[in-house]
């Protein structure tokens, strides 16, 4: 069953990759990359069980954290045009604490 799950992760990854290539806007691509990260996390965990080394779960934790932080970093780059404190341009009409996270 673990091998079947690994194959399903591969299929889901390929479908998300299709969306990442075709997506009309950058947000579609970002959503697809987020989904690819999720399937990679699941694939690492299942791959450890297929090989009989379940210690690979540690790498999955690392990937989960990197996926979350990376998505928010790219979102902040899209939203404010920079990764610094206030971004590239100041947006005073935003409620505070919305784009930082």
């Amino acid at each position, binding site marked *: 069953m673990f091998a*079947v799950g690994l194959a399903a992760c591969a299929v889901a990854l390929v479908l*998300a990759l299709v969306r990442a290539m075709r997506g009309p806007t950058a947000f579609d691509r970002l959503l697809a990359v987020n989904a690819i990260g999720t399937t990679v996390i699941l694939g690492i965990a299942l791959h450890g069980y297929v090989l009989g080394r379940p210690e690979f*779960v540690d790498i999955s934790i690392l990937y989960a954290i990197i996926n979350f932080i990376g998505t928010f970093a790219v979102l902040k780059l899209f939203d404010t045009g920079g990764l610094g404190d206030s971004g590239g341009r100041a947006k005073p009409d935003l409620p505070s604490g919305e784009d930082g996270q």
Partner: protein
Amino acid sequence: MEQIIDILSGLCIAAGIVALITGSLGLVRLPDLFSRTHAVGMMDTAGVGFIILGLIIHEGFTLISVKLALVGIFLFFTSPIATHAVAQVAYRAGLKPILDEDRTVGRVRAMPAAPKAKAARKEPKKTAKAASRKADKTAGKKAAVKKAPGKKAPGKKAPGKKAGGKR
């Protein structure tokens, strides 16, 4: 007991596989960013939750299962947050969701070829409206691409067929 645990974990992983495949198919097939977020949310909660639960049931109560639970809980809370943030930033960047009248046009386009003449006579006003909505949605190359096939009414069949062929 061993067999019961195997069956339970297999069932959980199968449910997770179904959710994962369904979500990724929806990610490819759905028409809009804001509807694709639903598909991604399904992958991130149901797929991850069931597969991690199946692995935990298979593992028993060890340190590995605690780590698996950590991954599951982290993804269960952070993935919908990330999806919501993507939708919020996209909406603030000027991307408008597809509304009701656009959906009507899509349904007519998806119909078989027989009632095409009647539909084509009835529809061009709505199509023009939808095209203008799409045009002001993204003032870019996408608008130009979308507007060109929508202008002539009998060619309304063409974009649907083209999209179907591209998949």
